């Protein structure tokens, strides 16, 4: 079982993402993004669906306040029922085009050991 790497996702993302086939290295399934105050120009259908998740609610009848806020790539894939590999690429494109961005308070990548310490401390606090 050590054949060449298959990339079965090639066709679908290629079509759905307007030609891009690789996500940015910093866009992973757990990467959180928010709407940027960027362009609102024409977007392909799938990209529009993604952006709709970030649209501020216009008078939500449920009374729960506006939609919007941060979402990780995985959250978007689940909400839109799109393959996560496709969403990674869509989000990458939308970051490149200025539609999406990292949250303003986001910390730069830190050494993995710092994050691990924080995870360990945090989990211990929960029990």
């Amino acid at each position: 079982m050590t054949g060449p790497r298959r990339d079965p996702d090639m066709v679908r993302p290629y079509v759905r993402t307007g030609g891009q086939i690789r996500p940015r290295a910093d866009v992973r399934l757990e990467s959180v993004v928010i709407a940027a105050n960027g362009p609102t120009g024409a977007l392909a259908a799938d990209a529009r669906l993604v952006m709709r998740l970030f649209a501020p609610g216009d008078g939500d009848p449920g009374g729960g306040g506006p939609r919007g806020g941060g979402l990780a790539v995985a959250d978007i894939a689940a909400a839109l029922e799109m393959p996560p590999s496709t969403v990674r690429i869509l989000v990458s494109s939308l970051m490149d085009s200025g539609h999406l961005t990292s949250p303003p308070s986001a910390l730069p990548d830190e050494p993995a050991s710092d994050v691990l310490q924080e995870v360990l401390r945090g989990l211990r606090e929960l029990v």
Partner: protein
Amino acid sequence: MVFGNWSDPSADPGRPVAYVPASVRRSAKIVVAGGFGVGKTTLIGSVSEVAPLRMEEPITEESTGVDDLRGTPGKTTTTVGMDFGRIHLAGGSLALYLFGLPGQIRFRPLWEDLTEGALGCLVLADTRNLDACHGALTLLEERGTPYAVAINTFPDAPAHPDAELREALALDPATPLTRCDARDRASSLYALITLAEYLTTRPAATHLDPLESLR
């Protein structure tokens, strides 16, 4: 549980969106792997602070186990479901995502996406079918992803001494082996803590020599 609103009538009504709190400044992920039915989703549901969600990734695989070099191998598309949840730590500044990943070798393409950047992996095992986690162990070793193993203690599963389990799973002596009840939040958290302790103490936790795992 905090749900965002999902009341746009033109949208799929069945998918609530749980927005990430504005306090989140960074995110990280841990993968929970193992065979079907071993309790991955149960464990994620036990600890997640949002209702677990599901992603579905279509993958193409050979429809037979035989390589066909004539150019038109039979292929089928399988949709693999992956459940995930989220815990907010450190006063809400850190979102820890937990992704459930089926351990079959044939899902190798998914592992590349899911394990990329993962802090580590908790492999769930059932003593009634230890073989079911061999795929996960093989893939983790290929990827060089550090892991701990947790036996999900199903009531009717036989108990075995650690030494036997370690031998059956061919675990490195340094790899943590623990037990948990995936239905129980605290028990599941302790299993994750066991993994996190290992990750913080192993030497050179940050090195990514891809060849390392092949040696």
